[in-house]
C-alpha cells in the first residue's frame, strides 16, 4: 500500500491543478439539477390557443371563458377565419385552435349533442396529446355542469390513492437518472481518458517497468475519480433534498452503497475502454457511444423502458445504468432495503468484476 500512496497523491495533484476541469466537475451537477428541476417540464403550460367562436351565444361564450381561464392556456389573437389558421400555425403563433360551430346552444338544447373541433399542431406530438387531454377534461366538466343530472355524485364512490409519490412530483423521475449520468460521466469517461492518456504519451510503459503491478496502477488511477464522483453524489442528493424537498425513504447507507457499487462498475468499464483504445479521442468517443448515450436514452432515465419494443428492452438490460436506476428508485422512493435490491447489486458487481478482469488481461499483454 505504501508503494501506491505516492502514485495516488500524484494523481490527485494532477486533477487539482487542472482548475478548469475541476470546476466543471462540480458545476455540472448543479447546472443539470437546476435545469431538470426547473426548466425541463413534461407538462404543458402557457400553450397559445385561439378560439374561433362562430356562435357567440351564451353557452359558447361561457365555454370559451372556461377554457381561457385555465392556467394551461394563453389566449392568442382571436382568429377570424379558418384560412388564417394555417398561417398562424406555421408561424407558431398558436399551438391549438378550438372551433365552436354556429348554433352551438341551440343544437345542444334541442338534440342534446353538438360537436366542437379541436385542431392541434401535431408536429409537437407530446404537447398536442397533453393539450387534447386538458381541453377534453375542461369540456366534460362543462358538460356535467350544464346537464341537470339527478345525481350530484357518481353512482359509485371511487377512492383513488396515489402510492409512493402522492404529490405526483417530477423529482423522482429525474434524480436517479441524473445521478447515473453524472457518475458515468465523471468516473467512466474521465478515468478512461486519463488512463488512455498515459498510453498515448508513453508513460504507461514506464509505469509497467516500475515495481508497481498493473492493478496497482489501475486502482491508483481510479481512486481520485471515485472520490470526486462521491462528492458529486453528495452534491446532487443534498441539492435535491434542499431545493426540491425530495424525501429519501430508505436508508442513506443503502443509497451510498448502491452509488458506490455503480461507481465501481462504471469505473471498470472506463478501464476496459482505455484498454482497447490507443488515443484519448478514441477513448472519449467509444465511452460516449457505449456509455453516455445508453445511459441517457436506454436506462429508463427519460424514456420508460416498457414503452420500447421488446428487443430494445432486452438491450437496456445490458447497461449498468438501467440496474442502477432500478435499485436507486427502490431505495429512495419505496424505502426498501437490501433484500429488495440484491439482484441489481449482484448484476452490477458481476459486471464490474468481469470488466476489471478483462482489462487486467488486456493490459498485461501490452
Amino acid at each position, binding site marked *: 500500500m505504501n508503494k501506491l500512496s505516492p502514485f495516488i497523491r500524484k494523481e490527485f495533484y494532477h486533477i487539482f491543478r487542472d482548475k478548469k476541469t475541476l470546476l466543471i466537475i462540480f458545476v455540472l451537477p448543479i447546472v443539470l439539477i437546476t435545469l431538470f428541476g426547473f426548466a425541463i417540464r413534461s407538462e404543458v403550460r402557457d400553450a397559445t390557443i385561439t378560439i374561433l367562436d362562430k356562435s357567440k351565444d351564451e353557452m359558447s361564450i361561457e365555454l370559451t371563458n372556461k377554457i381561457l381561464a385555465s392556467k394551461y392556456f394563453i389566449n392568442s389573437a382571436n382568429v377570424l377565419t379558418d384560412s388564417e389558421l394555417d398561417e398562424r400555425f406555421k408561424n407558431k403563433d398558436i399551438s391549438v385552435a378550438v372551433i365552436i360551430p354556429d348554433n352551438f346552444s341551440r343544437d345542444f338544447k334541442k338534440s342534446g349533442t353538438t360537436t366542437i*373541433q379541436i*385542431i392541434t399542431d401535431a408536429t409537437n406530438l407530446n404537447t398536442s396529446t397533453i393539450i387534447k387531454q386538458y381541453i377534453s377534461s375542461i369540456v366534460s366538466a362543462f358538460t356535467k355542469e350544464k346537464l341537470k343530472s339527478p345525481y350530484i355524485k357518481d353512482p*359509485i364512490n371511487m377512492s383513488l390513492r396515489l402510492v409512493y409519490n402522492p404529490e405526483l412530483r417530477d423529482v423522482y423521475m429525474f434524480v436517479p437518472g441524473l445521478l447515473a449520468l453524472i457518475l458515468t460521466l465523471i468516473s467512466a*469517461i474521465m478515468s478512461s481518458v486519463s488512463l488512455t492518456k498515459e498510453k498515448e504519451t508513453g508513460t504507461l510503459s514506464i509505469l509497467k517497468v516500475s515495481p508497481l503491478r498493473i492493478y496497482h496502477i489501475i486502482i491508483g488511477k481510479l481512486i481520485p475519480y471515485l472520490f470526486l464522483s462521491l462528492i458529486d453524489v453528495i452534491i446532487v442528493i443534498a441539492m435535491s433534498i434542499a431545493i426540491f424537498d425530495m424525501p429519501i425513504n430508505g436508508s442513506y447507507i443503502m443509497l451510498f452503497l448502491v452509488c458506490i457499487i455503480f461507481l465501481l462498475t462504471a469505473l471498470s468499464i472506463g478501464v476496459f475502454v482505455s484498454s482497447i483504445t490507443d488515443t484519448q479521442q478514441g477513448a472519449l468517443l467509444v465511452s460516449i457511444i457505449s456509455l453516455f448515450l445508453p445511459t441517457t436514452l436506454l436506462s429508463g432515465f427519460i424514456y420508460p423502458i416498457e414503452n420500447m419494443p421488446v428487443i430494445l428492452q432486452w438491450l437496456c438490460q445490458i447497461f449498468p445504468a438501467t440496474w442502477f436506476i432500478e435499485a436507486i428508485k427502490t431505495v429512495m422512493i419505496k424505502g426498501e432495503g437490501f433484500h429488495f435490491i440484491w439482484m441489481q447489486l449482484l448484476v452490477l458487481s458481476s459486471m464490474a468484476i468481469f470488466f476489471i478482469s478483462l482489462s487486467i488481461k488486456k493490459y498485461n499483454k501490452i
Partner: protein
Amino acid sequence: MNVTLELIRKELLQIFRNKLIMRVIIMAPVVQLIVLVFAANFEIKHLNLGVIDRDNTALSHSMKNSFVSSGYFKIKDISKNYTEALKEFDKENVDIILEIPDNFERDLKNGIRPSIFLAVNAINSMKAGVASSYIAKTMETYYTSDAFQKATKIISSSQSSINIEYSDWYNPHLDYKSYMLPGILCVIITIMGILLTALNVVREKEIGTIEQLNVIPITKAQFIIGKLVPFLLVGIVQFTLGTIIAVSLFSLHIEGSIFLLYIMIFVYLFVILGIGFFISLISETQSQAMFVSLFCMFIFILMSGLFTPIESMPYWAQKIVMVNPTYYMVDAMRLIILKGSTFYNVIRDFSVLLAMGVIINLMTFKFYKKVN
C-alpha cells in the same frame, strides 16, 4: 488559396486514416437513429391492472370488463387478497390495483353507493396522471353501459354531451418518429461537430505539433478555415447519411425544400464548429476540452425544445433558450421537414444562426492571436 486547400486536404487525410473516427462518424448516426427512434416514446400504451374482486358477481364482472374493453388497461393479475396484490404492485408488474368490495352488486341494486378502491403507482408521475384520467373515462363509459343501467336502473344522463372532433395538423399519422427524427439528426451532428473540432486543436497543442503550425507562413484565417472546413464536410456527410436512413428506413417525408434544409445545416455547422474551435482554444488539455464540450452539448440539447416543450419552461430558462443555436436549428428543421415552410418562415432561425456563427468565429479569430 492553395495553402488553405492543402491544409484542408491534410486534415481530411488525417481523419480518413483514423479508422476509429471513421467508424464512429459512420456508425454514430446509424445507431443513434435506430435506437432513438424506437426508444423515444412517451406514449403510454397500456396500464397493467391488478384486480381483487371480492364480490364476484355479474356487476363486478361487467365493471372489470369495461376496464378491459376501454383499451387502456391490461389485466395482469387477479389476486385473492390485498397482500398478494401489493407484492405484484411492488414488483411493478401492475401499475394499478383495483379492489371491488363484496357488497358491490347488492349495494348498487339497493340504491346505496358502494365504494371501490384504487391504488395507483405514482413513481412515474406522468403515468399516474394519465392513469387517473383513463380511470375516470372508463368509469363514465361504464355508467352509460347497458349492463350497468339494466341492473341498477340508474339512468345516467350522459346521453347528452359535447362531442369533440380532433384534427391533428401537419402530422396526420401522429407519427412520433416524424416528430423526433429531425431533432435527432440535429443532435448527432451537434455532438460530433463540437467534440471533434474541440479535441482536434487541443490534441495538436498536447502533442506539440501546433508549434510547427505556428512557425510556417500561413495566416490565421487560413489556419482556422483549414481546420473548420473538413469538419463541416464531415457534418454534412453525417447529416446526409442520417437523412437517407430516415427517409428510406423510417419513411420520413420531407415536406419542404431539401436545398433549404442544407442551407440551414450549413449555417448551423458554422456556429457549432465555431463553438468547438473556441473551446479548443481555451483548453489546455484534451480532457478539459472534452468536459467543456460535453457541458455545452448537454445544455444545448436539453434546452432545445427537442425533448420537452420550450413553452413550459420558466421565464429565465426561455431566455437561455433564445441563445441556444440548437433550438433554432431544431425549429427550422421541423418547420421545413414537417410543415414545408419556406425561406420566409425560417428567416428568423437563419438570421440568428448566421449572426451567431459570425460572432463566434470572429471571437475565435481574435482570440487565436493572443495564443499565437
